[in-house]
């Protein structure tokens, strides 16, 4: 067996060990260590990606001596490796670029604990991406939930505590529903590993016992939907994303919700089977909720009065896109949804890195009146914010455009008039609404400030500024890559999907 096959296991174990190690280090050392570790993890995931592309196959990795239905397993294919590389890169950029805000927001003596949480989150992210076992998914989902609560409250202001409590209540509800669904699926099929479970599920469908299966799958879907901010459950977003420190906001908005959705993908494809899922009524409901979410999230974003809340609410709309792709139920739809996961991760992280900078040069305020002209005061943040905003709106050459194009093509390919109409209408309405609030904000940050504009309250050292610019530039580069060379990623996703089933 090639050594590269051990890398998925190593990414998980290394992050777990590092999380404990960080509690013993000083804050600065913990940060340096985390950055080195994440670079290493990206290299490992990249090696796995190259290996799977070259060999054209996926592989499973037995965790211990006991093979498939008895012991745990992880699995790596093109799709998993691609997700791991991209999401880890976003994470690294978030940690590097958010450092200057972390210095201001989080108490100095707790920096090592913060990075311990970041590492725990990384381990959970890796485990959720690589897992081939539903229950492993649940365990690491719990780690991710708790770690994200910790990441929110790390900035000790009243609003984050409130946000974390709300976030935790909703997330625990989601976890509970997910666990109930898993228990029911185990009771119905007798397996927790995804491949044997898929076999038992297809037997069940042949016997015609679909109702209990549908309900348990619905519970899993709703549970993960609550956790990732599906249409009716997105009201926890603004405080959670908007009030926490920049790195936490990047992690929560770009990575946590994506990890949950990717787990849902894995369950639908590998534990239930794509054919069974497409035939279930859940698909149509997901399509509807996705379309509604696209509109409702944008409307909430328009109504919000401050920059961070607006950016946070736009996540709800973008998550709606992903669920719409899931609901289309065709291969093109799934490809578009997975592409949107990457595009949104890259774009939203850039937005959340730039908004605190814009607010810092506006007297530490996120209110629209105060940030007027902030793009002139902080030139780098203004440019990066504009790039991300244009991508969100869907201007060609940026990632958002490619994602929308993929969705439109996928909808037309279904050939069902109502679906085409709904998706096209939703895409159009959502794009127009996006223009309304993002372009308005871009104009505002470059408009002439009403008064002279406050001085920057907290000057930052040069070194941190460079880090910030480099990570924002990397995210911009990724955005352009996804936009200009979308077929590379889309082909990889298709290749990954074909080895998924």
């Amino acid at each position: 067996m090639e050594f590269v096959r051990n890398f998925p296991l190593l990414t998980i174990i290394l992050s777990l060990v590092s999380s404990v190690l960080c509690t013993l280090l000083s804050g600065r050392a913990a940060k340096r260590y985390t950055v080195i570790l994440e670079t290493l993890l990206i290299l490992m995931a990249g090696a796995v990606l190259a290996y799977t592309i070259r060999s054209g196959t996926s592989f499973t990795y037995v965790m211990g001596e006991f093979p498939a239905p008895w012991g745990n397993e992880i699995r790596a294919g093109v799709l998993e490796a691609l997700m791991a590389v991209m999401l880890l890169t976003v994470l690294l950029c978030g940690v590097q670029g958010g450092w200057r805000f972390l210095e201001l927001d989080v108490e100095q003596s707790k920096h090592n604990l913060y990075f311990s949480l970041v590492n725990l989150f990384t381990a959970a992210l890796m485990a959720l991406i690589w897992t081939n076992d539903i229950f492993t998914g649940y365990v690491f989902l719990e780690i991710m939930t708790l770690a994200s609560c910790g990441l929110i409250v790390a900035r000790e202001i009243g609003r984050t505590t409130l946000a974390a409590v709300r976030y935790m209540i909703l997330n625990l509800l989601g976890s509970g529903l997910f666990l109930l669904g898993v228990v029911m699926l185990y009771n119905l099929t007798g397996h927790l590993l995804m491949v044997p479970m898929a076999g038992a599920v297809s037997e069940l469908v042949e016997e015609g016992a679909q109702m209990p299966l549908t309900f348990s799958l619905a519970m899993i879907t709703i549970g993960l939907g609550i956790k990732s901010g599906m249409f009716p459950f997105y009201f926890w977003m603004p405080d959670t994303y908007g009030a926490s420190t920049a790195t936490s906001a990047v992690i929560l908005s770009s990575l946590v919700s994506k990890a949950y959705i990717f787990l849902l993908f894995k369950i639908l494809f590998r534990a239930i089977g794509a054919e069974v899922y497409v035939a279930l009524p859940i698909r149509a409901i997901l399509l509807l909720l996705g379309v509604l979410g696209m509109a409702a999230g944008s409307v909430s974003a328009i109504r919000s009065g401050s920059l961070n809340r607006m950016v946070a609410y736009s996540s709800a709309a973008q998550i709606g896109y992903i669920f719409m792709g899931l609901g289309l139920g065709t291969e093109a739809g799934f490809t578009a949804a997975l592409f949107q996961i990457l595009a949104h991760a890259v774009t939203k992280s850039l937005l959340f890195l730039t908004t605190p900078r814009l607010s810092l040069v506006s007297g530490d305020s996120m209110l629209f009146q105060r940030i007027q002209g902030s793009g002139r005061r902080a030139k780098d943040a203004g440019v990066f914010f504009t790039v991300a905003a244009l991508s969100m709106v869907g201007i060609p050459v940026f990632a958002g455009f490619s994602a929308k194009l993929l969705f439109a093509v996928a909808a037309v390919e279904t050939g069902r008039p109502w679906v085409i109409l709904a998706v096209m209408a939703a895409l159009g309405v959502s794009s127009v609404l996006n223009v309304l609030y993002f372009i308005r904000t871009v104009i505002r940050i470059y408009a002439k400030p009403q008064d002279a504009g406050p001085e920057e309250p907290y000057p930052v050292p040069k070194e941190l500024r460079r880090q910030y610019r480099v990570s924002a530039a990397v995210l911009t580069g990724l955005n352009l890559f996804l936009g200009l060379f979308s077929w590379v990623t889309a082909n990889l996703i298709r290749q990954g999907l074909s080895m998924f089933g």
Partner: protein
Amino acid sequence: MKRTFQSWLEGDLDLLSEIPDAAEVRNLSRRKLKDIHKEERSRIRALPVTRRVARLERRAFRSWYRILAVGCCMALLGVFLFMTAHVTRYGEENPRASEVADRYLAHGVEETGAINAVAGMILDYRAFDTLGESHVLFTALICVMVLLQRDSKNMRPDYEDYFRIRQEWYYPTEQDPILRRVGMVLGPGILMLGCYILLGGHLGPGGGFSGGAVLGTGLVILASALGDETVDRILTGKRFRWISFVALCFYSLAKGYVFFTGANGLENHIPKGTPGAILSAGLILPLDIAVGLVVGCTMFGFYSLFRRGSIGGQ
């Protein structure tokens, strides 16, 4: 009214902004503070904001919220009842779910060396899940530390009062003669019981999680009976961190080694021993000890953080 409720729901509206801070009255005795707090609460209840919120909530709850909540709960209840009808009855064998469980029961002893099938299952067959599970507790501990840790390293001027108030507010448990005497008698016994449950996990009911919980309880009882300073002498903050570090690292690395050898088809050279002997079942016993130490430390850590904002003194 509806808009106000909406903006409160979304977190825009801070309803507590009009309520003043009671910081200036901290330097007082317990009884006096209690009275002041009582007064404060009734004053807050009389504030127009509070009244408005109360009225708002009453209205919102009276109309749609209640109906919706009941409807959702009834729908969920229906789903659950329907599902229960499809679950295997208690005590009956599930014809579908028997393949994996049968193998665990039939070959568990020879394959894992543990007489306790549950220990064999969670620490050998599905050890990866348990690896995650032990880190769930660690994550919770880190979160509580982020939220509550107040020690000499992050001392701010306004924290000085904070420590004094804590001392005055909390009942000094170590001065209670009954608790002290009972704790002295029970504490060591509970610790012994914890060790027994911890070490016998592969032989009978017990194991790392339950044993660790008992150990943690014993430490909490000792700390409240003998005073925090007494326990500090054994379990300093530094030692606490090192115990967690060593136990969790050992767990991750040992299991990583087993996963690595298992997946690569190598021999792992871990003796299974004779089933039933205390030194048997391969890695299960050391893993149980590691898990137990982590769980015990975490339980005591929670108590200590909630009670005085630090682990092992300032």
